[in-house]
């Protein structure tokens, strides 16, 4: 089940997607962004440089929304067996975990 917080974070991720799609025409072929839209890996849309821009954009939007600084490229993210960058849903779950940890 997806809670309110997760809906908010998914919206942030979708907005970051849209921001990049505005920059590059080739990305506009992506008709819909949903929970299973891949972020990183062979089915993903972005090349590595745009992935950088995408992650920085997500971090910025989280910073603006929740007034906390998160790093999506820390050891924890990179060392997880199941990468948080698999799709929109897994990234949103990862971000919520970071936000919860920051609150404690």
């Amino acid at each position, binding site marked *: 089940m997806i809670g309110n917080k997760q809906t908010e974070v998914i919206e942030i991720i979708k907005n970051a997607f849209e921001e990049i799609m505005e920059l590059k025409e080739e990305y506009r072929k992506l008709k819909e962004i949903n929970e299973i839209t891949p972020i990183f890996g062979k089915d993903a849309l972005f090349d590595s*440089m745009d992935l*950088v821009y995408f992650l*920085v*954009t997500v971090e910025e939007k989280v*910073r603006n929304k929740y*007034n906390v*600084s998160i790093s999506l490229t820390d050891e924890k993210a990179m060392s997880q067996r199941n990468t948080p960058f698999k799709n929109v849903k897994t990234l949103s779950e990862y971000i919520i975990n970071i936000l919860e940890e920051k609150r404690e």
Partner: protein
Amino acid sequence: MNNKKVMLITGDSRGIGSFLVHYYIEKGYIVIGCSRSNVNILHNNYRHFILDISDEKAVIDMVFKIYRYYKRLDILINNAGIASMNPIILTPGETVKNIFYVNFFGTFVISREASKIMIKQRWGRIINLTTVAVPLCLEGEASYASSKSAIETFTKILAKELAPYEITCNAIGPSPIQTDLIKNIPKEKINNLINKLTIKRLCKFEDIVNVIDFFIKEESSYITGQVIYLGGV
């Protein structure tokens, strides 16, 4: 968002960093400095953070505060550094680790975090401090020069990765300058070093800002991944 460019200078409590702070405040920049100790600079366009740049969390927190307050970061000058002058045989492993931690790791982390803001604003200038000890391969400076050598390679790779976002990254390698970093080196050794330079004198602060001014100016958008050594090395 304010109209003045925001500059972050690491290691600004003394020496080159301290000179740069005063120089760029005078030039109308908003200057943010950081060092392990406090500094006595009171100016509306200056803010100081006390931190160790090898402390990753502290660096992330500082850059977050800069973003929250100024909403921009235009120029980063990675000046903070420590040195140890000893023959390899007499250098403890901990000393080497410490030098690499502050000089290389610190530069890496702060550049990574600053880049995140610069990428979004699609403009930025990153200047790293290296040393003539790298091309001269000076005896007794193995750990210091090697850490700066790592910074030079880092500068070139960072330049490539950030080029799509109109961010340039360059390095300057000063020759010996009268700062605390060389205060314990015998005069004779400094003179020997000066004799290895094409222009045989100590470096001046003005020589350094001349190159930094060149790197950060708008017209230098086509200059990236370069290392400029002073004194004709």
